[in-house]
């Protein structure tokens, strides 16, 4: 029903921050595309929309939603879906993605990506929601694997099997967040390499990379926090090599949302991502 290849270029991208607007226009290298959070561009006008229009004149844009609550038991918010349709309609971005998570409960938006159990019931719910989004937007979406700090005892499906089944039933693509894989695997005590080996790589249209913080749980076990506030960690770069060896070149996004540094620091992270892509053809 939908195009199955990602129109984002297999280049480094960066999560767009308004404070970098001038620096990007002076020298974007080596960044080839940008990602924006959908909800930040749903105002009626002003600087945010003007900047996004100018940015989209020069670069492919990925729209990344954080507010649809695809993993939640509530019905999707029709008003929010309509706002998304409007944004995707005028911007015509190269990609639209959302999360395997929930954020809204009884009409209260909690501004965080929250976890769901993996069961046949939640699988059916997520597939219904993905179908509804793809139908409303008239395009294929990418669904992102979450970072997890705990597990639901009732879960009967592995996350990779769950995602694989969503892809099979809805035709959606996947956004593979390699930092989330490392964070979740460390926190829940499984092998991130096994996770990557099992991941339905043919469906992946985009990669996310971000930094995490280290903490520990009640038993002294390591607990990594998906903080998006520092450089991508070395073991995550190593996992990325494994992903690219399996999948081939893909669009690689650097996410840095807290304690956002000056542009050259982000450009240096993007350059490291460019190096990971160059290794494939070396």
């Amino acid at each position: 029903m939908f195009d199955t290849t990602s129109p984002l270029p297999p280049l480094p991208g960066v999560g767009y921050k308004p404070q970098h607007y001038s620096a990007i226009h002076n020298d974007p290298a080596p960044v080839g595309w940008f990602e924006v959070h959908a909800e930040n561009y749903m105002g009626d006008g002003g600087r945010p929309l003007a900047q996004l229009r100018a940015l989209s004149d020069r670069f492919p844009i990925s729209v990344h939603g954080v507010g649809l609550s695809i993993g939640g038991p509530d019905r999707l918010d029709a008003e929010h879906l309509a706002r998304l349709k409007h944004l995707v309609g005028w911007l015509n971005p190269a990609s639209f993605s959302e999360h395997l998570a929930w954020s809204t409960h009884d009409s209260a938006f909690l501004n965080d990506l929250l976890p769901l159990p993996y069961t046949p019931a939640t699988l059916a719910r997520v597939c219904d929601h993905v179908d509804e989004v793809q139908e409303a937007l008239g395009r294929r979406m990418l669904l992102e694997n979450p970072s997890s700090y705990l597990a639901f005892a009732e879960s009967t499906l592995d996350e990779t099997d769950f995602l694989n089944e969503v892809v099979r039933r809805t035709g959606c693509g996947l956004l593979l967040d390699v930092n989330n894989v490392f964070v979740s695997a460390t926190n829940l005590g499984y092998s991130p390499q096994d996770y990557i080996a099992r991941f339905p790589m043919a469906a992946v249209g985009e990669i996310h990379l971000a930094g995490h913080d280290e903490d520990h749980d009640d038993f002294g076990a390591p607990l990594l926090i998906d903080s998006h506030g520092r450089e991508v960690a070395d073991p995550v770069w190593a996992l990325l090599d494994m992903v690219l060896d399996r999948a081939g070149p893909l669009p690689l996004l650097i996410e840095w949302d807290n304690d956002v540094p000056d542009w050259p620091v982000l450009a240096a992270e993007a350059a490291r991502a460019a190096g990971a892509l160059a290794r494939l053809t070396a």
Partner: protein
Amino acid sequence: MASHAETGFRTALLRGDAPVPKGLTDGAGRPAGRRFNVYRNNVAVALREALEVGFPAVAKLIGPENFARAAGMFLRAHPPASPLMMHYGAGFPEFLERLEALRGIGYLGDVARMELALRQSYHAADAPALDATRLAGMDEAALMRARLVPAPALRLLRSDWPVLSIYRFTMEPGQPKPPARAEAVVITRPDFDPLPHLLPPGGAGFLAALIKGGTFGAAVETAGPDFDLSATLSLLLQQGAFSDLLTD
């Protein structure tokens, strides 16, 4: 249908004192414990930070600890009703005014209202400003019957307090101490940055009548005896306060 663990998860999230819900583990069968608090903390911090970004002058006026306490109470009582965080906190001014501990700071609610108005103006729709020469070419009778259409980014705030002077004194170093007086503030957005201005005498009544859709003549009449028409009009036109002029 939500499972028991899902329902428990959702209910306990916004309640800092609630026990960690059942059915959550560390992935190896041990209870999740403080792992759940990562989510609880993320939610509270994300919403509190949204309020800090939206109300920086209020945060400065009452200090970080008081602000964190007020924001924590607000976000539990009034979590966002939509995923558009740019709109979050519309009820914060009234909430602050009802907090017993902050009753002594009478102007706090109006400072919050002004910050809210600045944020609304920032995200309002774009519209080209009315060309002021269109007024100059009209005869007086036609002008009195005409209606000025407020630009989408225009906001008006009338306060019993020196709200703009307090805001500037709080946010900009070197500003004079606020005088004891009532202030009426108009917020315009000639470009992309909302600008607050003090309205000349009578200007607030005049502008309020125009915003309600009244004619120019009716607005002048409601403005009061000390109304300074030329100062008010030149400020508003120069700042792009109107997007159109409707004549009959």
